[in-house]
C-alpha cells in the first residue's frame, strides 16, 4: 500500500509535466481551429517561441540577479509573445491572403528549426543553448503542507503546471462564457452567419490564430524547462502530438485535457515501466513500450471517433461571395 502511494506520488507529477505542454499547445490549436483556421504549424511555433524564450532567459540569468521563477515567467511570456508574432505569418497567409492553410503552416514548420539553428550558430557558434538552473518549485508555502493534495500538486512542481491550469480555466471560460468566445466559435462553424451579424470574421480569426501562437510559443518554453536543460532547435514532435491531441479531444477543451492526460499517462508509463509493479516483470523490447502510447491512442480513436466532427468551416478561407 505504502509503495503504491509512493508510486502515485512519483508518477503523478510526471503525468502532469507531460500533460501541461501538450494540452496548452492543443488548447492553442483549439482557438485557431474553432475560429476556422487549421493550424498544423504548432510544431514550428513551439520551436520559435521556445527559442526566443530561452534566449531571453539566458540573457536575464547572465545579466541580472532575478529569482529563477521570475525569469521562468518572463521566459514564458517572451515565448508567448514571439509565438504570437510568428503565428501572425500564418494568419496573414491563411486569412488575409486566403491561402491554402496547410502550405503556409508547412512553411512555418520548416522555417522555425532552420532559423533557430541558423541564428544560434551565427551568433553563439552552437545550436545548443544551455540553460542553467533548476526550475522546479520544491514546495509551495502553506499549500504544500496539505496532506495528499499538497504532496501531489504543490511539491516538486513546475510554475508551468499552475500556469497551465490557469490557462485551461481561462481558455474554457473565454470560449464559452465571453463575447469573444461566442464569436470565435461562430466563425469556425458558420462565418456567413457571423458576418451577417456584423462580426468581423477576419479580426476574429486573426485573434484565434494569435492566441494559438501565444499558447504554442509558451508551450515551447515549457517543453524546454520541463524536459531538458537546453534548447537545440527541436521540441521532439510535441507540436504534432498536440495537434493529434486536439483532434483526439474533438475540439473541446475538457476532452482535450482528458486526451492529453491519457496520452501523457501512456507516454510516461512507457518510459517509467521499470518502476511499475507488473510491467517491470514483463520482458519486452523497449520499442514496444515506446510505441504503446501511440497504439493506445489509435485504438481509443477508432472507438471514439464515430461522431467526431471538426468545426464545419475549418480550413476554408472566408469568402463573403460564396454563400
Amino acid at each position, binding site marked *: 500500500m505504502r509503495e503504491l502511494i509512493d508510486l502515485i506520488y512519483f508518477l503523478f507529477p510526471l503525468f502532469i509535466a507531460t500533460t501541461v505542454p501538450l494540452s496548452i499547445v492543443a488548447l492553442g490549436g483549439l482557438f485557431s481551429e474553432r475560429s476556422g483556421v487549421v493550424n498544423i504549424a504548432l510544431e514550428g511555433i513551439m520551436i520559435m517561441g521556445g527559442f526566443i524564450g530561452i534566449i531571453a532567459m539566458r540573457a536575464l540569468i547572465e545579466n541580472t540577479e532575478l529569482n529563477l521563477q521570475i525569469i521562468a515567467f518572463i521566459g514564458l511570456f517572451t515565448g508567448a509573445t514571439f509565438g504570437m508574432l510568428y503565428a501572425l505569418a500564418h494568419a496573414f497567409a491563411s486569412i488575409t491572403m486566403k491561402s491554402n492553410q496547410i502550405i503556409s503552416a508547412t512553411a512555418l514548420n520548416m522555417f522555425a528549426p532552420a532559423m533557430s539553428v541558423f541564428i544560434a550558430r551565427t551568433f553563439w557558434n552552437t545550436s545548443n543553448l544551455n540553460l542553467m538552473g533548476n526550475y522546479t518549485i520544491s514546495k509551495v508555502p502553506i499549500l504544500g503542507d496539505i496532506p495528499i493534495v499538497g504532496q501531489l500538486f504543490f511539491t516538486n512542481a513546475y510554475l508551468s503546471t499552475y500556469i497551465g491550469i490557469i490557462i485551461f480555466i481561462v481558455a474554457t*471560460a473565454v470560449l464559452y*462564457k*465571453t*463575447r469573444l468566445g*461566442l*464569436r470565435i*466559435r*461562430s466563425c469556425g*462553424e*458558420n462565418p*456567413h*452567419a*457571423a*458576418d*451577417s*451579424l*456584423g*462580426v*468581423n470574421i477576419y479580426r476574429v480569426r486573426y485573434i484565434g490564430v494569435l492566441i494559438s501562437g501565444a499558447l504554442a510559443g509558451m508551450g515551447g518554453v515549457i517543453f524546454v524547462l520541463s524536459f531538458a536543460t537546453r534548447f537545440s532547435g527541436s521540441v521532439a514532435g510535441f507540436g504534432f502530438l498536440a495537434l493529434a491531441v486536439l483532434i483526439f479531444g474533438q475540439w473541446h477543451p475538457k476532452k482535450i485535457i482528458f486526451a492529453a492526460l491519457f496520452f501523457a499517462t501512456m507516454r510516461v508509463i512507457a518510459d517509467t515501466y521499470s518502476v511499475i509493479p507488473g510491467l517491470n516483470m514483463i520482458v519486452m523490447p523497449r520499442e514496444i513500450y515506446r510505441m504503446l502510447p501511440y497504439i493506445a491512442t489509435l485504438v481509443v480513436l477508432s472507438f471514439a471517433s464515430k*461522431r467526431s466532427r471538426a468545426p*464545419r468551416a475549418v480550413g476554408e478561407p472566408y469568402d*463573403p*461571395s460564396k*454563400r
Partner: protein
Amino acid sequence: MAFVIEMLNITKEFPGIKANDDVTLQLKQGEIHALLGENGAGKSTLMSVLFGLYQPEQGIIKVRDKEVVIKNPNDANDLGIGMVHQHFKLVHNFTVTENIVLGYEDTKKGFLQLDNARKRIKELSEQYKLRVDPDALIENISVGQQQRVEILKMLYRDSEILIFDEPTAVLTPQEIQELMKIMKRLVSEGKSIILITHKLNEIKAIADRCTILRKGKYIDTVEVKSTSNEVLAEKMVGRKISFGVEKTPAKPKETILKVEEVSITDYITQKIVVKNVCFEVKRGEILTIAGIEGNGQTELIHGITGLKPLTKGKVILKEQDITALSIRQKSLSGISHIPEDRQKHGLVLEYSLENNLILQNYFTTQFQNRGFFKFDNIRDHAEKLIERFDIRSGKGPLSQVRSMSGGNQQKAIVGREIDRNNDLLIAVQPTRGLDVGAIEFIHKQLIQERDQGKAVLLISLELDEVMNLSDRILVMYEGEIVGEFDPQKTTENELGLYMSGSKRGKQQ
C-alpha cells in the same frame, strides 16, 4: 410622405457582371414595400448593399434623409436596419439565444449575460407570438422555428426597418398567413418592411408598393393596388408569360416503383425520420410528394436511391426487389435522380461540364475501355446534351461547372438524368432557385418524360409547382404520408392544412 430609406442610383459590380445597375429604391415609413424580380435580378445584392455586406461602386444611401455609408452589418444595425436572409444565417450547434445575441452581445466584466438575453427573447416572443425555446439547439428545431429565430434577431436589435428575403419559400400556406399577420403587426407598430419575393400573389396580399428589378436594372416602382398581376409579371420577366403549365391528362399504365412500409432512422440523431411510407408510381404519371422542408422527403428519396439505409420496408422497381442493392446497382436497374442539392450531390464543381455529364455512367463501355477513358465519346456526349438541353457556358464542354450559372448547372443535371432514359425519374425540387425561363424549360421536360411513358416522382415544396405539374399528390408530414389528393379536386389551402399537420387523412 417621408422616406425612411432611400437607395439612389446604386451600382454594384462583381467581376464580369453588373449585379445592380443604377437601381433606386425608396421606402416609406410604415409601409410594406415589395422588391420584385426573378432569381438573379439583383434583389439580394441590393439588399446586401443596404445591409452593409457589400459596398456599392456608385450611388448613395439615405436613412431618414441623412446620407449614410453602411460599411458593415453593425452600421446597418445601428441605423435600425435588420434582415431575414433567404438562407438562414444560423450557427447549427448554437442555442437559439446564442444565435440571437451573436454580434450584439451584452457583457458584464467581459462575461456574456445570457440570462438577461433569454428573458428579453421570451418577452419578445410573447409580444409578437413567435414561439421558440431559447435554449434549443438550432439543429434540433424546425425550419419554421428557425425563421422565427431570424425575426427575433431583428426585434432583439430593435430594428425599425426590416428586410425579408424570400421568407415564404419554406413555409406552408398557413404559416405564410401567420407570417403575414406578423408583418402587419410589425408595420402597425411603426416598423417599415422590405419584402423580397418573386411571388405575385404575396405582393398582392400584403404589399403597399412594389419596386421591380430585371437583370440588375431598375424597371419601375408601382402602387400594388392599382396594378394587375399580368402587368407586374410582364415587368418582372420582360415579356408576356403564361401562367400554368400546358399538359394533357395523364394516362397511367403499369406500376414502375412500389415503396412498401419504408422507415428510416437518422443515424446521428437517432430520430425516426420516415415512418411506414407506402406508395406507387406508375408509368405515364407524375406523382408529387408535397410537404414542408424537413418532413422526411429528403430522407425518403435517399432511402429509395440508396444514399441512406432503410431501417425497414422494401423498394420494388419493375417488380424486382431492389432494397438491398447498392446505389450503383439501383441506378443501373432504372432510376434517374435529379438530386435536391445540385452542388452537394448533383455535381463535382471542380470538374468540367463534360466530366459532370458522365458522372452517372462514366464506367459504361460507351466512355471507357479497360478503365481508360474514350475522350472523343465523352466530348460527343457532352456536345449532344449541350445542344439538346440548351446548356449555356463559357467554354462549352470544357467549362468548369463552378463558373456556370445555377440554371445551367441544373439543366446539365436534368439533361444528364433524362438522357439516361430510365423508366423512373426522381426529381427533387428541380426548379429551386431558378428563373422563370429555366423553370418553364424544366417543367416542360418533366411533362415530356411523362408523356413518353416514364414514371416521374417529383418532390416539391412550391405549391404552385405541385398544383401545376402533378397527376397525383401525396402530402408528407413528420415522416408520414398524411393524405393523397387529386390536383383537380383540391386547393392550396387544403394541402397546406395537411402539410402543417393540422389535418390528416386515413393511413393508406
